[in-house]
């Protein structure tokens, strides 16, 4: 452990020296005698203690994956060096993490055992990947003349996942996939939902015969049903820019929304993929199941805005990331023209596209002059125009204000898409 002198060790030698010097200068032995207790303390402190070695420390967390706001216990196991009788143990947490109810720092004494473990209850305020923290160890010699310190970090991480919002209804894709799922497909086949009746054909099962219709129409008629299939969903995240500070930014809201939507679709046995479309392009191909859910949320935690001037279009997105008949859901603050163009391009290619807008006005300062107020009005009109262009291209979009539930937004997008489908018919 490295050591630093305390205030005592910095003061006592000079006090003793001053008193001895004054004794010599004035020829008065009383001043030297007055320095004797100080000198005794100084010598006893320096000669009676040794520098301790670096203690063994083990840091462990009760969970490596938690939902944001949940409590996780971080255990610090420390061996107290033989040279000190007590050790002060403090846990320095990364920004965004906080202690729930523990005293920090704490003192452990050698009398209670040479190896002890302390538990600190930690809560992570927002999603993200957090290091466990740094353990600060501090000890003093017997007279508190020297302070021994060590800082020991850990490379282990705790991943705090965004708390997913419960969504009872989701955006219904225009097309379903081939595999079994929970969505009623438009085509006919084996399923539960009734679709139509038709005359019996060789090979039809007896149980599919509709006896009432057969009795009325004179001949065998069988039921047709809609099969239940899954869907492919691609979440397209606008990471060109963001608005607001780290906590409460549009990026944070976007990740939270993407996590909720992905969890909801994956629960319905659908396949979900994610594309970070911004300064850099990152992706996770569509997939389903529990392992994919963890992979996807881990990928979401690493989402960040990378600033770039380079113009990027949908041509940079590998084609395999956009499966045929996939529903593409864009999450965007509508601040970057490149993302808007990408949404319009995808829609123009015949893909099924919807979007959730993350409003940025709450992050802007109130206009202070008439000119600024006019500029703000023009900016709002521009955003209205952008929305109108998206609607015109068949992209349903709804605004998700910060702090509001996501479910009504999803319902609004779905309602618009239903109306649009009816208009097309």
């Amino acid at each position, binding site marked *: 452990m490295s050591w630093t002198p305390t205030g005592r060790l*910095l003061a006592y030698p000079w006090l003793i020296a001053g008193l001895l010097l004054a004794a010599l200068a*004035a020829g008065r032995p009383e001043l030297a*005698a007055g320095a004797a207790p100080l000198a005794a303390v100084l010598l006893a402190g320096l000669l009676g203690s040794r520098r301790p070695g670096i203690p063994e420390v083990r840091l462990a967390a009760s969970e490596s994956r938690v939902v944001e706001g949940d409590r996780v216990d971080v255990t610090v196991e420390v061996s107290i060096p033989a040279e000190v009788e007590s050790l002060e143990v403090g846990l320095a947490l990364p920004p965004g993490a906080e202690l729930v109810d523990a005293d920090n720092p704490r003192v452990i004494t050698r009398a209670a055992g040479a190896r002890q473990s302390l538990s600190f209850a930690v809560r992570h305020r927002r999603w993200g990947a957090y290091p466990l923290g740094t353990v600060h160890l501090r000890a003093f010699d017997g007279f508190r003349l020297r302070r021994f310190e060590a800082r020991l970090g850990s490379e282990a991480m705790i991943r705090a996942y965004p708390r997913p919002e419960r969504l009872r209804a989701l955006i219904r894709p225009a097309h379903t996939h081939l595999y079994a799922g929970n969505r009623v497909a438009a085509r006919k086949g084996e399923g539960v939902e009734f679709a139509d009746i038709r005359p019996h054909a060789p090979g039809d099962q007896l149980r599919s015969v509709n006896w009432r219709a057969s009795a009325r129409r004179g001949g065998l008629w069988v039921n047709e049903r809609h099969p239940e299939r899954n869907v492919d969903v691609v979440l397209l995240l606008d990471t060109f820019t963001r608005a607001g500070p780290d906590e409460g930014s549009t990026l944070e809201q976007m990740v939270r929304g993407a996590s909720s939507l992905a969890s909801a679709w994956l629960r319905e046995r659908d396949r979900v993929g994610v594309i970070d479309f911004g300064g850099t392009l990152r992706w996770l191909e569509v997939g389903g199941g529990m392992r994919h859910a963890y992979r996807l949320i881990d990928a979401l935690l690493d989402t960040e805005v990378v600033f770039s001037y380079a113009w990027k279009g949908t041509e940079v997105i590998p084609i395999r990331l956009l499966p045929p008949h996939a529903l593409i859901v864009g999450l965007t603050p509508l601040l970057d023209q490149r993302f808007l163009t990408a949404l319009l391009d995808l829609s123009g290619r015949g893909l099924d596209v919807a979007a959730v807008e993350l409003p940025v006005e709450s992050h802007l300062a109130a206009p202070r002059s008439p000119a600024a107020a006019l500029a703000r009005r023009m900016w709002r009109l521009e955003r209205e125009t952008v929305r109108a262009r998206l609607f015109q291209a068949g992209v349903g979009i709804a605004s998700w204000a910060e702090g509001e539930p996501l479910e009504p937004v999803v319902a609004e997008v779905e309602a618009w898409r239903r109306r649009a489908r009816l208009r097309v018919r």
Partner: protein
Amino acid sequence: MAPSRPAARALIPALLAVALSAVLVIAILLRTVAAASAPALVDAAAGAGIAGLLVIAGAVATARAAAVGWGVALLAAAYAACVVGHGAPVDVLAPLVGLLLVLVAELSHTACEWRGPHAVDVSAERRRWARLALTAAAGTVAGGGALALAAAVPGSVPGLIVGAAALVGLVGLAVWLRGGAAGPAQPVP
């Protein structure tokens, strides 16, 4: 460990430090006024003593441990002025003054430390104070012995040499002790 609020737990050592300083200053002033031949020495002792008391009080009130040394140095200077003004007879209470200086310094440092974000282990503190009391008492006895020896053999040359060597050694020690810095964070095995 007794968890308590830092300001509350530091109150007792802070009050004791200020009270002991006040006692020391009053004793020095009474002795100086009674015996001093030169008014300038009375002024010097009074000025240094009161300044030392104020510095100690300020240090414990604001938890500035670095100022404690200056406060104790001013109290020691006040005592030096008192001794010089006292004249020929040797002051046999000098080791007790040294003991008081140690107590003031320790109490003040303790008050400053307890004001900070440190955990305090009461049993360890108790053991430290016991060690400190024994050591300071031993130093006081040794100081008394040295004082008696100096009074018996006035102006001894070996004493002067030993004193000067001790002075040089202490200054060297103080310079050496300024080293030592916190090391970088190391990964936990």
